[in-house]
């Protein structure tokens, strides 16, 4: 019996100890009318056959050289990261409710929080949320709680559309209005909002959906001047190169949130990733999710435990700062090891290579007839390429060349039909850029 150890003798002895005659008798309090005895499930497989079947499925996904980003990025993950994160002691542990028996997980989370505060330049980080997009929804709810009576959020129209969709799902349930902030079609950059209205916060996406860098100082200052909080949406790898939210404008952003996937998390078709969320210390009691603190035991030894649990659903129930319980612990473990493996030096170097590759690729493609770049930049590692034909068709044709060429903005209902959002990371060598150029040229010529 896979994963069930009992042999017949053991089962019989245990049933006898319980005082029942059969396994079925253990369910004698359940009305028999409710009991089923079959389900439309497949036959079980030996591990051997299971492996073969799933390896076949995995191999049937086309391996592609990745030039797509849009919120999920192909990066190198050092071999030690998952080697350690997948150790049974991390992999198969529960949430650290018994801190004395969970110091490993707790110290990892404390170090993670420390790393995130240093990346974002803010004082407090929680121990993760589901992903960047749902993290942004939580950040908005947090801003609304801090602000008190306000009832809306200023949402940029050049925020990643998948993130906007999550705000539509989560915030609208609570009658929060999302007020769009338009961008300049020519530059791709946000315009300062016309008015603050009853908004609690302005979302400032650095990087925006076109891969462009926003003028975060003036946006943050505008928010503060109008009594709004500034919620920074940031890419953690880019923060190795770009100004930390805590340094934005005169006072710094109030909350920073982002998708943690670039920090050691495999792409896996879209998840599991993790959302990170940092804020000023003054707002810690409005923070959703777990928080780990350093403390002492009776003998004065340092240790770690969950803290401020009165914010959370298992204590506060309906009055909690969020319903989140299980979060993305293992992803955060991997991300912590990833960040520690790279260090400042490695993160800066990786950010630098990504940026350089994106520059090089842009230069490579300039020579192709009919293509252009609608935005002047600056950018980190992603930008929009404007093709003379449908970007969807070009993307699909390049699959045959082993390339995932980017994301057609049309699929996001943004930009023009020829717009392709293209990303370059350190996984690409210079020769790959030429491969891309040549393949694109041949596809364009064939159109």
């Amino acid at each position, binding site marked *: 019996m*896979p*994963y069930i150890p*009992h042999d017949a003798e053991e089962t019989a002895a245990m049933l006898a100890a319980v005082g029942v005659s059969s396994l079925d008798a253990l369910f004698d309090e359940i009305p028999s009318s409710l009991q*089923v005895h*079959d*389900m439309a499930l*497949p036959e*079980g497989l030996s*591990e051997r056959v299971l492996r073969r079947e*799933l390896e076949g499925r995995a*191999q049937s996904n086309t391996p592609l050289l*990745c030039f797509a980003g849009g919120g999920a990025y192909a990066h190198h993950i050092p071999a030690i990261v998952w080697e350690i994160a997948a150790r049974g*002691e991390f992999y198969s542990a*529960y949430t*650290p409710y*018994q801190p*004395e*028996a969970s*110091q*490993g997980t707790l*110290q990892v989370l*404390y170090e993670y*929080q420390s790393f995130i505060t*240093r990346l974002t330049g803010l004082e*407090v980080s929680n121990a993760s949320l*589901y*992903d960047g997009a749902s993290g942004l929804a939580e950040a908005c709810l947090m801003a609304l709680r801090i602000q008190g009576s306000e009832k809306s959020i200023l949402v940029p129209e050049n925020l990643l559309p998948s993130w906007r969709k*999550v705000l539509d*799902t989560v915030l609208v349930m609570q009658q929060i209005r999302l007020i769009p902030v338009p961008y300049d079609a020519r530059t791709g950059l946000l315009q300062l909002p016309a008015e603050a209205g009853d908004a609690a916060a302005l979302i400032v996406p650095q990087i925006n959906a076109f891969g462009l860098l926003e*003028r975060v*100082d003036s946006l943050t200052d505008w928010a503060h001047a109008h009594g709004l909080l500034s919620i920074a949406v940031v890419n953690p790898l880019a923060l190795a190169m*770009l*100004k930390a939210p*805590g340094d934005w404008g005169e006072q710094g952003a109030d909350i920073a949130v982002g998708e943690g996937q670039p920090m050691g998390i495999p*792409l896996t*078709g879209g*998840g*599991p*990733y993790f959302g990170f969320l940092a804020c000023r210390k003054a707002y810690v009691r409005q923070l959703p999710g777990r928080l780990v*603190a*350093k*403390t002492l035991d009776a003998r004065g030894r340092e240790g770690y435990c969950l803290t401020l649990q009165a914010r959370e*659903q*298992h204590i506060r129930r309906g009055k909690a700062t*969020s*319903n*989140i*319980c*299980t*979060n993305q*612990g293992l*992803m955060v473990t991997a991300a912590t*090891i990833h960040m*520690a*493996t790279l*260090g*400042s030096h490695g993160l*800066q170097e990786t950010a630098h290579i990504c940026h350089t590759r994106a520059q090089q690729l842009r230069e490579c493609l300039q020579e192709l007839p009919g293509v252009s770049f609608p935005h002047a*930049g600056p950018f980190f590692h992603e930008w929009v390429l404007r093709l003379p034909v449908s970007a969807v068709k070009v993307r699909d044709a390049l699959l045959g060349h082993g390339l*995932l060429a980017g994301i057609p903005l049309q699929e996001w209902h943004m930009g023009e039909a020829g717009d392709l959002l293209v990303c370059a990371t350190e996984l690409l060598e210079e020769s790959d850029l030429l491969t891309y150029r040549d393949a694109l040229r041949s596809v364009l010529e064939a159109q």
Partner: protein
Amino acid sequence: RENNRQNAVTDSIFDHDHALPAPESPGDIPAELLRKTPLNLPNASELDVLRHYTRLSQKNFSIDTQFYPLGSCTMKYNPRIAHAMASLPGFARLHPETPAPAMQGLLQVLWELQEWLAAATGMAAVSLTPAAGAQGELAGVAMIRAYHHARGDTARHKMLIPTAAHGTNPASAQMAGFEVIEIPNLPDGDLDMEALDAHLGPDVAGIMLTNPSTLGVFERRIAEIARHVHAAGGLLYYDGANLNAILGRVQPGQMGFDVMHLNLHKTFATPHGGGGPGAGAVAVQERLKPFLPLPTVTKGESGALRWMTAEDAPRSIGQLSAHGGNIGVLLRAHAYIRRLGRVGVSRVSAYAALNANYLLKELQKLGYQAAFPERRASHEFILSVSDLQQATGIRALDVAKRLLDFGIHAPTIYFPQLVPECLLIEPTETESQATLDRFIAVMAQIREEALAHPELLREAPHHLPVGRLDEALAARKLDVAAALS
């Protein structure tokens, strides 16, 4: 002192810093957009990183190293083959924006999982996107809301929830904009039907239940409850946290539930990872299908699979995360179900119940008091040590901490709150009788110690890297990030 010496090992990652130069600033980005405060993460050698985190891992209890009978959490074996399969490069390197024709292998896994979860729960359709149980609950109650609104019934703003329910239930209902009404339980553990009936009415959107309940017993009148709620126009939400108790034996769909979530990281053996990621797939009856969160996987006429979008499902409650949910977790759940198959899945609840009832009986023999002695245990059961508290002052917390000294993780304590000094014990089906017998022996010893040497319990744990931690100090000092040195 001896112990302190032993532990005086460099053990903060911040002790392993080395000075390494940063690359030059890029010329094409304006200076005011570039990093101002130096990035101050430690630059440690790969060996020091590996050693630091490997040693930290050894400070954890986990299923792989300890018996972990944490009630309500279903800490069963997480098969390693599932991890190996989810880590295959053909899955792990797939970008979410890969066009469907280039990811049919993944979509097929997800499509099958949708089908299998529907079959296992007796529901009509499934969305796999919720990232955890609580997000599944939020999706579920949002669907209830959407269902009522779609029928023009906008008055149903109340959600009924038993007092003993998991904290996420009221939190999720609240987050979806509902007012929460608590319904008490009777002394025998079943729901108070009179209280329920008193609250039912045109302002009630539905009720959130788990069955067996958090009291570790099966709600025997579930069919009656369903009839009453449905008659009052409400819907029934099933909290899948306790699904392991009835998997393959009773289906939520057949009990009358309209919508539910499944905790794949409990019932379907995906790892808990020290706090996630989970996966909280939602399943619904036919009438709620249009409202399922997106994206789900659908099969076209040609047999080709693709993601469904808002164009396909305009009444969907929408997206809960940027992509398709915790796909790596879903891959693991798929592998688990495929490995067990129809017969293996059915055995889960039988042996979970056997282990729980065996433990309950044997612990009662030792003098431990069952919260519901007249009832059959489900996959878990509640003991109360109020008798010890009265005799010696020993509390459930002390028993829990003392268990850690024996290399056994503590049960859930002080939940559900309505049983004083309670221990909620869930052994799961993957533990052998030998492990249970050792737990029983340890519990016998602890009971003796509680009566003869209560200080052994009050000062426990004695043999872990740290003793009982000062949680009040933690909240007061609030040291939640390492200071810059």
